[in-house]
């Protein structure tokens, strides 16, 4: 029975959390009040771990919360519950876009949201940068990586691994 409840609760989060992973946090706090699956303190730890491990924060938190509630199967069911509404909504939108891709109104909307998306990405990046760059060493590492990426365009996975290695070597 707990599996059904988990699926239902996380499908609700997937349906109402507009704007990505961090938006699911208030919903998870509600869950910690409504059920005794995890405490708000545990949730805070879950957020910290989810942000620093591979995978999208929202997906990681769902697996974590589901695991706390009902072990391995609970984690899997909560995560699948979270993504099921997305699959249906996105398929509907994709169908619409394919059908009206040549419509001038759809074209106008898409071309005018592009500069706004650029602004959104710049602001979000600035936020991440103020959190991540905390001293001169951080800034030096960041600057070296930024120049390297600009001039030697390689696969980003290479740079993720390189920056992890640089962090271990230079920061310990």
């Amino acid at each position, binding site marked *: 029975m707990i599996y059904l409840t988990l699926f239902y609760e996380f499908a609700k989060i997937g349906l109402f959390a507009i704007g990505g992973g961090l938006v699911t946090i208030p919903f998870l706090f509600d869950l910690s009040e409504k059920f005794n699956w995890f405490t708000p303190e545990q949730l805070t730890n879950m957020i910290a771990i989810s942000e620093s491990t591979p995978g999208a924060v929202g997906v990681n938190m769902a697996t974590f919360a589901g695991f706390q509630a009902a072990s391995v199967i609970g984690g899997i069911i909560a995560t699948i519950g979270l993504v099921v509404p997305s699959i249906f909504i996105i398929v509907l939108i994709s169908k619409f876009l394919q059908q009206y891709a040549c419509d001038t109104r759809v074209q106008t*909307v898409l071309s005018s949201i592009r500069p706004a998306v650029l602004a959104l990405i710049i602001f979000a990046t600035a936020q991440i940068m103020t959190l991540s760059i905390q001293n001169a060493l951080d800034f030096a590492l*960041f600057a070296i990586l930024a120049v390297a990426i600009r001039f030697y365009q390689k696969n980003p996975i290479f740079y993720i691994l390189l920056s992890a290695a640089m962090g271990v070597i230079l*920061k310990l």
Partner: protein
Amino acid sequence: MKTYWELIISFFKTGLFTFGGGLAMLPIIKAEVVDRRKWITEDELFDFYAISQCTPGIIIVNTATFCGYRLKGFWGGVVATLAVITPSILIITLIAAVLSRFMDNPYLESAFSGIRLGVCALLLNLIFDLGKKIYTQSSQKKLHIGIFLGACFMLLVFKASAVAVVFTAALAGFLPYLRKFRKRSHK
């Protein structure tokens, strides 16, 4: 069958090497899906990133569903979505079950602080490329620079949400039509 397999590998990789939220996913998914596999164009990816911010759900999941659907219809969307969440399920289950204390390891912490800097550098690179591309492709440069500045203003002064910014930009795109309409009605 081959396409399904490629979908699984690409989105498993994307899930595995994304640290943080949907934004950190963009450089990886662009390298994999746009540059390497050429499944969708860069424009489609960023249009979809914008749409994902205004629709329910996790951004990386929405983008995976979109790419999968484009290639193989409904089941392609399902397969890509499952592939992108699998690394999370595996890694978090492991951590939740045995490794929660392992996360305080100093080596791991410094690796993560390095990764955060790498993600910042990757995003900066993406911003340069994207800005250049939007500017050169724009057919109405004045209007689009105006929308960009307006969006910055909304974010800086009003701390507006992504949904509000995207909707305002979409409406602003119709301003030139309004002027044409007015001119016509004056005649």
